[in-house]
């Protein structure tokens, strides 16, 4: 099963809506609360990064029997130093956006922390792609 949403840069009214729908749908189809929460957080941070840093893009998930794949692809300025961008506290968010509480430089670190696998690919002047994997808990609950 696949869910996919369009995300528009600087649209703070719709921002967060894709992640909210993703989380809600996961709960509706019986995915456990903790997994839905983790997917929601990763999707939210990816969605907000498109809203804040890029022009437009898509955020989506593929639900598989044993895991959820999260993807986010945007057209935007790209990231020149991904290792630096991954560091806690690194942010290029402008002042007006920081005043809204964004730009702590915690989004990518959150994605890393809440996913089991995370890949960031980017081309400067073109865009950024995020691939994250969150494994579903095993039936035995281990």
């Amino acid at each position, binding site marked *: 099963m696949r869910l996919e949403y369009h995300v528009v840069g600087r649209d*703070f*009214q719709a*921002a*967060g*809506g894709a*992640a*909210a729908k993703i*989380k809600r749908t996961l709960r509706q189809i019986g995915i456990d*609360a903790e997994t839905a*929460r983790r997917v*929601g*957080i990763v999707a*939210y*941070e990816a969605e*907000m990064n498109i809203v804040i840093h890029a022009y437009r893009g898509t955020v989506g998930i593929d639900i598989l029997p044993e895991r959820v794949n999260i993807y986010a692809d945007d057209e935007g300025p790209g990231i020149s130093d991904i290792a630096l961008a991954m560091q806690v506290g690194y942010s290029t968010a402008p002042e007006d956006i920081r005043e*809204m*509480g*964004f730009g*702590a*430089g*915690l*989004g990518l*670190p*959150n994605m890393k*922390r809440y996913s089991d696998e995370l890949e960031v690919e980017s081309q400067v002047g073109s865009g950024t792609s995020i691939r994250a994997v969150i494994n579903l808990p095993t039936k035995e609950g281990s």
Partner: protein
Amino acid sequence: MNHQVRVRDIVNELECEVAAGAGWLDNQVSFGYSSDLLSDVMAGAGQGDVWVTVQIHQNIVAVASLTGVSAIIVAGGANPAHETVLKADEEGIPLLTTAKPSFEVSGMLYLMGIRGRVKK
């Protein structure tokens, strides 16, 4: 855990205004979290937490519903934006407001028995 504090108890104790989500005041409160940085809240707040902030724009509702907090308290006398109120009602999240500053609010919540979530 604290002795089963509900959002309603906070409204009474702190004399908050209920700006939205009045139908969800029976939500149980687990822990407390105070922060104005949204990604910090995403990282640190958990299911059932009461979240204290001075942010008032509508994105706080998305953060609240994704983290599963039991209520948002807007401290410091700020008035939540109209869209924030509408969204909070839509999502069923109690949105409380108070003139008391964040520090005061957190202290009063602590005195009610609400503790910070210990980070895993």
